[in-house]
């Protein structure tokens, strides 16, 4: 009996100890007298510009605000994985960061979820706010027209082409394609002159995820007859089904892959293919052209992931044409990331002050230049060092005129995945463009319901 009782007692004691240590560990952070600001963002081997920005801001901010500690929480992940991690951390005040890097496509849904602090009263008192362009202000708005985030910079998409490859094929430079036919024509010429070169890379399928739409299919779709309303009808707020433009766009992709003017489907579905494109294919002149973001030079600049000084002379950039050259003549997609403050932050003003410091003219200029972003602050855009950062700044900034933004609704991610699936079915020959478009229409209706779609 004695023995049993002692076992029971020690079990209780151990249980108690576990509970106690659990408590102390949990309450430790709040015991600290210093205020702590947690900052969450992406840092990978290919993307360090934001880490540089926050490291600088942390030092300045801590010097200016005594007793405040800024805790940087870089997350090494792809964009998609980062968004998942961020959303999970925001479910509890204990783990939610105070300031974080936020994708414009996730912004409206995250504002609806109550993850983001309404910034209206803070920006109205912020003297720098007038420096931001109207488009940038618009990008930070939630469904209720309040400001929930401040834009760090934006981007556009252009066709990047290899001058040596084009010269070898006898194509006149600078290359300015006016229609889809011009693209196809150039690709065929390249294939004829250098059979070992991949003439035109066109991202497609689920492997490259959202990127395959942004740096691929949307350039086609938004250049068809419905223009900016090709995917989502902004007037009725409904998703477009049954459009000829969708079928035509898939047919273009199909043609590129069937005639072997693009990468093989297996290569195109490799999530890491972009690394080969920047690191090997363009520097070795084994690729004719690809659609890619305005940030492309950041990979090749000094300090980039695939340093290649020759890009200044060897590469050209131009706007992607509309289907038949109809107005506005070119098409591009824009995204961009913002900074936002968590709704659960303990000291909103302090968090906003840190964010404002990170977005100051000097910091924004350094960030835009290092990351080849298109400036959203007027004073940065006018700065000489911004324009001189690389030879392509002028071209990609001009493309802003014809750019489009994705419909950032809560369903967007699922619809984007369906667009990727339709592309993948076409390039892997599992469906004809018509069949893939029909399957897409059916899938969209299943996601948003019959009242959420509009037949065009």
């Amino acid at each position, binding site marked *: *009996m004695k023995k*049993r*009782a002692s*076992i*029971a007692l020690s*079990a*209780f004691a*151990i*249980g108690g100890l*576990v509970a106690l240590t659990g408590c102390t560990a949990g309450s430790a952070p709040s015991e600290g007298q210093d205020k702590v600001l947690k900052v969450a963002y992406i840092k990978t081997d290919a993307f360090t510009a934001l880490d540089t920005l926050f490291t600088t801001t942390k030092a300045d901010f801590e010097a200016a605000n005594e007793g405040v500690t800024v805790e940087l929480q870089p997350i090494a992940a792809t964009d*998609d994985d980062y968004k*998942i991690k961020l*959303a*999970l951390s925001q*479910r509890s005040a204990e783990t939610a960061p105070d300031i974080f890097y936020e994708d414009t496509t*996730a912004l409206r*849904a*995250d504002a*609806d*979820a*109550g*993850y983001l602090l309404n910034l209206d009263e803070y920006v109205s008192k912020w003297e720098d706010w007038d420096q931001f362009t109207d488009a940038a202000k618009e990008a930070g708005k939630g469904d209720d027209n309040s400001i929930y985030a401040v834009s760090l910079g934006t981007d556009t998409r252009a066709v990047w082409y290899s001058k040596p490859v084009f010269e070898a094929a006898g194509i006149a430079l600078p290359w300015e394609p006016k229609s889809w036919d011009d693209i196809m024509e150039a690709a065929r010429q390249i294939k004829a002159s250098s059979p070992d070169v991949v003439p035109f890379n066109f991202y497609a*399928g*689920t*492997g490259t995820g959202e990127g395959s739409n942004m740096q691929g299919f949307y350039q086609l779709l938004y250049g068809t007859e419905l223009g900016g309303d090709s995917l989502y009808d902004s007037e009725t707020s409904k998703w477009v089904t049954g459009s000829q433009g969708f079928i035509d766009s898939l047919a273009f992709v199909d043609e590129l892959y069937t005639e072997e003017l693009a990468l093989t*489907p*297996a*290569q195109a*579905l*490799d*999530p890491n293919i972009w690394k080969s494109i920047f690191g090997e294919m363009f520097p070795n002149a084994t690729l004719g052209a690809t659609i890619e973001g305005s940030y492309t030079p950041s990979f090749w600049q000094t300090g980039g992931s695939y340093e290649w000084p020759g890009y200044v002379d060897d590469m050209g950039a131009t706007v992607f044409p509309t289907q038949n050259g109809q107005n506005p003549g070119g098409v591009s997609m824009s995204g961009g990331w913002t900074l936002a403050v968590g709704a659960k932050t303990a000291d909103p003003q302090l968090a906003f002050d840190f964010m404002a410091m990170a977005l100051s003219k000097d910091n924004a200029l350094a960030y835009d230049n290092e990351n080849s972003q298109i400036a959203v602050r007027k004073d940065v855009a006018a700065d000489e060092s911004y324009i001189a950062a690389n030879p392509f700044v002028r071209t990609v900034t001009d493309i802003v005129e014809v750019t489009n933004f994705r419909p950032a609704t*809560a369903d967007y*991610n*699922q619809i984007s*995945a369906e667009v990727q*699936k339709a592309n*993948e*079915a076409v390039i*892997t020959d*599992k469906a004809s463009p018509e069949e893939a478009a029909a399957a897409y229409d059916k899938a969209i209706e299943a996601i948003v319901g019959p009242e959420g779609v509009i037949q065009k």
Partner: protein
Amino acid sequence: MTAEVLAPQDTHVRRPKSNSGSRRRPVREIVKAMRMIPLLPAILIMITFLAGPIIWSIYGSFTNASLTGVNASNPQWIGFENYLKLVNDPVFPLSIWLTAIFTFGSAVISQNALGLGLALLMQKADKKVTASVGTIIVAAWILPEIVAAFVCYAYFSLDGTLNQILANFGMTGPNWLYSFPMFAIILANLWRGTAFSMMVYQAALNDVPPEITEAAMIDGAGGSKRLLLVTIPMIKNTIVTNTMLISLLTLSVFTLIYVMTAGGPGNDSTTLPILAYKEAFRFSNIGYGTAIATVMLIIGAIFSVVYIRALRPQKD
């Protein structure tokens, strides 16, 4: 004989106890209850970390909870809607089918057969051979899953080891992960999991008394007859237990598949765990994802019940 001798003694001892039983019973009950106390922490831990998530998963599957958007902060009770959607989802039957192929192909059949085969061979083999082969096989098993997954990715990918070996023989291999995703992940899981079955069977075979197999040999039973009629019936319980363990482990394999193919191309290697992950996290539908997880839970529970039933008569 012994029973007869013991019987009177037994009744003799019992009598005084039953006389005072009415007073002593509560004490005995308390003692009995006291014995449960050391189990309490374990039970509490089980409830918190095992039953908790299960209950949450079942509850979540009846809501439209999501990772972001309005439903993230205010999930609504939507009844069986997620399950109705699941039944009508064309990917779901495919996913069940792929999970079944994966589990049967890589665990129930291959790991079992290969594990038993290796264990039998090792009984006969030279000690040095046993030690070196055993080490190599166990190495695959003790590797962290993420490392094993990368090793397999590097082996099967387009420029991977396998295709380089084939190139030495003048053959051009396909992109295995793209053209034969199920084949690649089944082989990878077989490679990784065989060690477990091998070790279980080695232990079981060591317990088969040599005199029985020797007796069978003297009775004229050949090698295959001895295996089928003597050895296998004697380790039947181990086979059932091992099959249960490896099939349950394989049913929930995620990292290996996610790293190698991420469920692709298309949905061609999307087993249930991958489908649940995609829906819950990639598309933010936590409610729908947990519905898939709950279905997996039920399938796992059915498997367990079947195996436990199969074990029962042997124990008596």
